[in-house]
């Protein structure tokens, strides 16, 4: 039987090491990763505007008119409106000074706050209703209230 020469053994060994190294060069190790972070929400405090779309003209002493409207949400996200509140702003109007001035005391609001419970999308939309503006029937002359525009302020939450 023919024996391998020393040269053959050595060359074979070198070839084996080179081959093993080449295999090692293609192998790779793996590593895991982990960590943490947070996601915080904003305050969401972008005021929604309450719009009155109903007409409140034609009021007379002892009469009333229902108020209704919608909302303008200037935010880029939906905002939930729980209710709408209305109040009459202070005013005094006396075109004829021989008669009593027409004031906010000649009018009243009922049904405020009115429940809404709507998620209002960006832009103008949604709706509210349920608030009533009334004119009192006073024992005094209320002619100065003719043609008066009653300032009503709205808020929402």
């Amino acid at each position, binding site marked *: 039987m023919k024996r391998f020469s020393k040269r053959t053994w050595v060359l074979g060994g070198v070839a084996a090491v080179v081959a093993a190294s080449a295999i090692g060069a293609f192998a790779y190790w*793996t590593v895991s990763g982990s960590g943490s972070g947070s*996601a915080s929400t904003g305050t*969401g405090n972008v005021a929604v505007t309450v719009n009155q779309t109903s007409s409140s003209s034609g009021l007379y002493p002892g009469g009333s008119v229902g108020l209704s409207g919608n909302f303008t949400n200037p935010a*880029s996200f939906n905002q939930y409106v*729980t209710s709408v509140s209305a109040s009459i702003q202070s005013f005094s109007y006396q075109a004829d000074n021989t008669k009593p001035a027409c004031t906010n005391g000649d009018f009243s609001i009922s049904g405020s706050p009115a429940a809404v419970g709507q998620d209002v999308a960006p832009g103008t939309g949604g709706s509210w209703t349920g608030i009533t503006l009334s004119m009192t029937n006073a024992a005094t002359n209320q002619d100065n209230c003719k043609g008066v525009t009653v300032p009503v302020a709205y808020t929402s939450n």
Partner: protein
Amino acid sequence: MSTDASSTRVRSRFWVLAATSIPLAVLAAVALRAGGAASFSAEPVPFRISGDVSGLVPGVPADVPLTLANPNAQPIRVTRVRAEIAPDSDPPGCLSASHVALEQPTGITSDAPAAVPAHGTVVLRTYPSAPRITLLATASNDDACKSTSFALAYTGSAHS
């Protein structure tokens, strides 16, 4: 001693030396190509993942920029990153299961890994390389979700 016998012994020693030194040289060359003998044999340590996002509002998706930090002396290729809302981090009245949608960074894959240099960092800024989170716009009052936060936990895998 004959000249032939001496010559044979010299040749024999030459080949023995060659048989030991050549493989060592080859190994050294491979190690250097891999970036240095010390780092080649070093045990890899986990890479770090971090990322925060703020100002979430209902219905508006927000990308969560992720920073991948590689503490190893070898570059790595990150092939997978996953995010989740850490258990028990839900704010009172604002359950993540019903108020948050979390989209995974599916853009990081074995076919599209994120390369992070040795001792370096990489920031993945936008979805789908980064996660995306949305505070859902529900039809109910979500005031409990205002000015609060959820804890995020990240995991990932990589190779050299």
